[in-house]
């Protein structure tokens, strides 16, 4: 193995572009590992953790650094040359629409576009709070996609926003839809009467997609970020979101999505919900349904249930019960004795969390790197035991690597490894479509699912690969195209995360 580095001085690229570049380079022949980063101290530390320590390099935070490791120097040099060519190539948008003089700061952009009403901030976390502060001072609402923002900064930003009649969605807000326009990682959905306020990006994606697939539509989906309902922040954005949707003419029904908040925060949020004058569907993911009371409040047991209740209410019907309805048939050959465990490999943290709660209720002990019950935390997230559900979007996996919704390498390797385990009966996968996600997830997953099933069959066993596609036919990847390709590879597809968890539980539960 040989390593080499290349530095592009004073060249800034955003982290997602660099992750995409890293993924392309890693797929080159003879390349073992490669990472393209802005050479901040934090990123240099991550490189070291990933075993790509570049040694002493004359690169600083404004310099783009690429480190490549491969079988010989020819392969490494070729990869670095390819990187240079890729970096030199102007993006279509930069070359076409923008011209030579894009605004260089929020302030100058604001002067150019007086009608601007929202700043979408997705810079590295250490700079994000400052950009959000500028946006608020310029009278703009903020969606803060960036994560790793200090909680103190979040509190300060949200208080400033509130004082100025503005809203901060985030930090760590992955998904929002405002006036039909997707922000961040969102799906293309019909417009309609259901408004969402979500502390979870994938939770919001699930509900908006299911609402669309049930024939209804979304007025707005407001993201709060994952820390909004903590004691420190106190649900400032969620309360603002409820009030904004309450005042919004198009919204008839409001859906709230969050992991169970701190009790006093829950009280404040539910008080705002009770007083908002519209039906509110509440899904505190994994929480006991009796934690929510109120005339206009409807408790949903799952994200799937939340979507169905909201659609029924929006259409003037009675809210349905939590029953998940008909599950797809499982037509598999006989499994071997001893195959009894579920292994979930999730790219969405909320999907992992909801499934953990459901499987825990159905099957008992469920291990995870992001467990519902803290006592069930896996010692080593890279090794499964018993029923194990893994959130591959967790920091432990994404440090120095692209997110699993964009880069399938980690999940594909893990999928093959879990299939080798003679005790595994079912593997659960989430497949997320929409803006920001991989352009063709099925193309990445289908061959690996086929390979895993073939391996298992050669050993005289059978395995269920269960999952769901979170997306719509309007998404760039196309729901039907993705679903058909995955079904052809032998994946058993349900409509939702909850259904997939229920199906996996019934497969494993029948084999105890």
């Amino acid at each position, binding site marked *: 193995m040989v390593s080499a580095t290349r530095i592009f001085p004073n060249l800034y690229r955003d982290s997602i572009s660099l992750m995409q570049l890293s993924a392309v380079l890693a797929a080159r022949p003879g390349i073992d590992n490669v990472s393209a980063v802005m050479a901040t101290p934090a990123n240099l530390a991550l490189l070291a953790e990933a075993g790509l320590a570049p040694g002493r390099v004359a690169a600083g935070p404004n310099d783009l650094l690429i480190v490549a490791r491969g079988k010989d120097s020819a392969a490494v040099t070729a990869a670095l040359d390819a990187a240079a060519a890729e970096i030199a190539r102007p993006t279509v948008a930069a070359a076409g629409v923008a011209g030579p003089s894009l605004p*260089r700061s929020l302030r100058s952009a604001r002067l150019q576009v007086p009608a601007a009403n929202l700043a979408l901030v997705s810079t590295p976390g250490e700079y994000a709070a400052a950009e959000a502060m500028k946006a608020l001072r310029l009278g703009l609402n903020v969606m803060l996609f960036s994560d790793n923002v200090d909680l103190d900064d979040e509190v300060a930003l949200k208080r400033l926003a509130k004082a100025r009649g503005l809203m901060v969605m985030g930090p760590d807000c992955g998904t929002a839809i405002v006036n039909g326009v997707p922000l961040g990682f969102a799906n293309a959905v019909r417009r309609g009467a259901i408004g969402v306020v979500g502390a979870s990006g994938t939770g919001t994606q699930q509900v908006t997609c299911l609402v669309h697939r049930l024939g209804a539509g979304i007025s707005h989906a407001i993201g709060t970020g994952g820390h909004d309902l903590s004691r420190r922040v106190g649900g400032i954005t969620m309360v603002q979101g409820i009030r904004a949707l309450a005042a919004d003419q198009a919204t008839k029904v409001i859906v709230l999505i969050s992991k169970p908040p701190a009790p006093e925060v829950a009280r404040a949020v539910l008080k705002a919900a009770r007083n908002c004058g519209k039906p509110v569907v509440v899904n505190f993911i994994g929480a006991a349904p009796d934690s929510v009371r109120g005339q206009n409040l409807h408790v949903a047991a799952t994200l799937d249930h939340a979507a169905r209740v909201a659609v029924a209410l929006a259409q003037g019907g009675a809210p349905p019960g939590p029953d998940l309805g008909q599950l797809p048939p499982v037509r598999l050959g006989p499994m071997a004795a001893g195959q009894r465990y579920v292994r979930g490999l999730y790219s969405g943290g909320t999907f992992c969390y909801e499934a953990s709660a459901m499987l825990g209720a159905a099957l008992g002990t469920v291990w995870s790197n992001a467990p519902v019950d803290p006592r069930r935390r896996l010692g080593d997230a890279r090794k499964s035991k018993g029923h194990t559900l893994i959130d591959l979007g967790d920091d432990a996996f994404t440090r120095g690597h692209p997110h699993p919704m964009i880069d399938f390498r980690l999940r594909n390797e893990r999928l093959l490894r879990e299939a080798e385990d003679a005790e595994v009966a079912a593997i659960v996968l989430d497949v997320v479509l929409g803006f920001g996600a991989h352009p063709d997830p099925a193309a990445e997953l289908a061959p690996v699912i086929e390979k895993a099933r073939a391996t298992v069959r050669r050993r005289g066993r059978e395995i269920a690969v269960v999952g769901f596609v979170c997306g719509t036919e309007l998404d760039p990847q196309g729901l039907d195209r993705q679903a058909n390709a995955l079904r052809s590879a032998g994946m058993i597809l349900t409509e939702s995360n909850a259904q997939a968890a229920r199906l996996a539980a019934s497969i494993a539960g029948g084999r105890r």
Partner: protein
Amino acid sequence: MNPLLSAPLSVLNVGVGSFADAIASQGGTATRIDWTPPAQGDRAAGMALARLVNHPRIEAANAKAYRKLVAAQPRLIGIGVAGKTLPGIGRRMILHAGPPIAWARMCGPMQGAIIGAILFEGWATSAAKARALAASGKIGFAPCHHHGAVGPMAGIISPSMPVWAIENAAGGNRTYSNLNEGLGKVLRFGANGAEVIERLRWMRTVLAPTLQAGLARLGPVELKPLMAQALHMGDEVHNRNAAATSLLIKKLAPALLKSGAASADIAATIEFMAGTDHFFLNLSMAACKAMLDAAHGVPYSSLVTTMARNGVDFGIRVGGLGRRWFTAPAPVVDGLYFAGYAMADAAADLGDSAITETAGIGGFAMAAAPAIVKFVGGTAADALANTVAMTHITLGRNNAFTLPALDFAGTPCGIDARLVVDTGILPVINTGIAHKAPGVGQIGAGVTRAPLACFTQAVTALAAAVKG
């Protein structure tokens, strides 16, 4: 109620570019921002800056300061003697370029020029004695800027030197500059031999009185229209002054001929000006200072009112922060060098002439000067790009100085220290390059950038001022 949900969504996108594509594909409006980490990654300075964005006190102060800057009408009113004219100058005082600096830290050309000035004043009889006197502490050294003046390169002004006097007709404030000696072995590059001293004496005894006689006949010369015209003739009035000098001669020659001065003196004066392409530079600089001084002193203003270098430190001053200098090491200019010289021979950036960029000409008006584009990358497009880039860090465009190549847009004018820190775009400065040894002279020219550290310090100080 927040109108976000009822108004059409218009997004400013900072960060991941593909998010803007998704927004556009779904019928939304997204404006991309070409973002880099503010303050070149200095997080604390970036956060201090963020709290000053759209700050009402600063915006109001800058609006006022900017109005004064563009309203200023500098005009040449005459020639005086430094020791009798410059405010606060002492009898044994020598002024120099850039921020304050002690003798021991001065660069070679500045020390050489000070030795020359001591010889010129007759305070010492040899270079060695002059050096000893300079080091003895018996001579006061102060920045030109502290006494209403500016000087190119070493910027040395001693009491008996003649100075141009400029008055801002709109504000009444006056500024001064020494007279340009031409190229080659000259004091401002640190030369101090007999021919240099002899020329300085001739300038004092012949050139200055003759010019003064002409000016007395002519009356005040409005400098702003003259500079504007020169911009239309290929000068940027910092590194190229050929047109402006010609225009000045055109104005002065008839008055000189009618002034009653000796015809031999008039001939020598016109000949000297005609042989000195940069003769106008010192007037350009003093005119710029007159405009910027008018704008200085508005509390809380983040307008940069001075950029100057002493060959060791680069310093700036900011309108709302009084007389404080914010300094950083002066860069060595990576420019074009005359045959036989290289970057290793160069002194660090030197001179008060960056006052021209501070006022929005010079490097900021590069689009006006295609003849010298070799300094900025070689093509006319590079020159335009330099000017356009400066619009990101300036408060406005000065419609008194228009640029034909940019459809007569005004020059980017009025550097806001906040914008420099926010965008990381550093003010561009066209400059000559001095040899680091005294007296060798100019060895090249090129483009340099003001160091970011000056601006981050200023922004941090402004943040404290606004809080306090």
